[in-house]
């Protein structure tokens, strides 16, 4: 294990929003193919953590190194990293003025310079994988929330990312749509995609994750395999959190 260089390295990362410290001394290494679930109460810094990985937020100190490239203010580095890192948002963020197909083709055409026909083929391939190829010519507003989130996943996959970040992908969904999104994510995990998921879906964490991370007040409080994490949490903060999310 030691010989393999980690795909993502975060060293002593700190992040402030004004006076508020959102991340405190974060140290995290993610290997290629690893599936990680991050959970914790709201405001604990989990979203900020993954948003720092593709520089939607810039960290104030420490180092973030993705596949050998350090994230600094240099735009070339940021672009290089972003093209390897796919991201799925809580609120889908599909481009409302483009059809589903165009949503999937835009970045391929502009960033990857993929020829139109090729980009369309790739787009349809991933739409089939998320099981909604028949929606290709509709606008996002015509799709259900679950379908929109699957499109968002397909859109990220079209860039052939080496790692996928999920920022509470099911939190904005009606309950009956959560499973269709989790299924797509589980399939991805089975294929060996490196994934970091911020989610409260504990069933997903238990069945899919290699490692579960618990954050509170900007710190990584505990990380363990799912079995250890759920069956024998060590810190009091995690025990309390578990009680709160499992009692209802």
């Amino acid at each position, binding site marked *: 294990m030691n010989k393999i260089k980690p795909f993502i390295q975060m060293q002593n990362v700190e992040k402030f929003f004004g006076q508020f410290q959102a991340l405190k001394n974060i140290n995290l290494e993610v290997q290629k193919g690893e599936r990680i679930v991050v959970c914790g109460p709201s405001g604990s810094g989990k979203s900020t953590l993954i948003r720092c990985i*593709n*520089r*939607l937020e810039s960290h104030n100190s420490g180092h973030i190194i993705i596949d050998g490239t350090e994230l600094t203010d240099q735009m070339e580095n940021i*672009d290089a990293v*972003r*093209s390897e*890192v*796919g*991201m799925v*948002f809580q*609120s889908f*963020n*599909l*481009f*409302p*003025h*483009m059809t589903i197909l165009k949503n999937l083709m*835009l*970045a391929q055409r*502009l*960033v990857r310079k993929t020829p139109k026909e090729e980009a369309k083929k790739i787009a349809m391939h991933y739409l089939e994988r998320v099981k909604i190829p028949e929606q290709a010519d*509709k*606008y*996002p*507003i*015509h799709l259900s929330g679950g379908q929109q989130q699957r499109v*968002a996943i397909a*859109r*990220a996959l079209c*860039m052939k990312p080496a790692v996928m970040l999920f920022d509470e992908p099911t939190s904005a969904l009606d309950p009956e749509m959560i499973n269709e999104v989790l299924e797509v994510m589980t399939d991805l995990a089975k294929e060996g995609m490196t994934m970091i998921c911020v989610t409260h879906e504990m069933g997903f964490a238990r069945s899919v994750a290699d490692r579960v991370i618990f954050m509170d007040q900007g710190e990584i409080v505990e990380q363990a395999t799912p079995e250890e994490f759920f069956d024998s949490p060590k810190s009091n903060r995690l025990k309390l959190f578990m009680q709160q999310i499992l009692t209802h």
Partner: protein
Amino acid sequence: MNESVSLIFDSVLQMLGGIGMTFQLMFVSGILGLLLAIILLLMRISGKWYLNWPAQAYIYVFRGTPILVQIFIIYYGLPQFEFIRDSIFWPILREGYGCAIVGLILNSGAYVSEILRGGVIGVNPGLGEAGSALGLSARQRFIHITAPIAARLALPAYSNEIISLMKSTALASTITVMDMTGIARTIVAETYAPYEIFISLAIIYMILTFFIQKSFGRIENFLGRYTKQLEI
């Protein structure tokens, strides 16, 4: 009674002779005003103070003063300077027509840039983030994501501004331009029948407004097609 009907009929025909001038004033200043507005908008949202401040100052000055006063300053004031009379702009600024168009462009640019900025601010920031996450550059995000959505959001306010611009073209008549209002004033001076003439003129402007409204309604429908649920 018969007399005033035929007077109205004759003068409406005469006034419609100026409709081409009214359209010219409106379209030329509308299009160039929009270009100016886009430049001002880009300066405002550039994030660079040395672009943002001049744009803000410009907008403040042109929104803060009456358009009629601006037109007077351009028409009566600028020719006092010799360097203006010697400049390449003199052929434009020598004529009332040129001055009116310059005044309308400068004024409309200031208003429209703020309207466009409202549209840009209304675009969900999450969409820009999604673009960033996909690796799009700031310029690509603006062109392909922000601008088209902002245009749709700004359209109702923009149509309002174009209607207002259309009516402002009447001010050109104060500096010798023979648009519809200019012709109407001449007829009134000859016939002493202000009611008949100006009310007919007002109705012509209202009809024009109606067509502008309808056109923008269509554009809104087209640009907003992605905001509508499918009919089942």
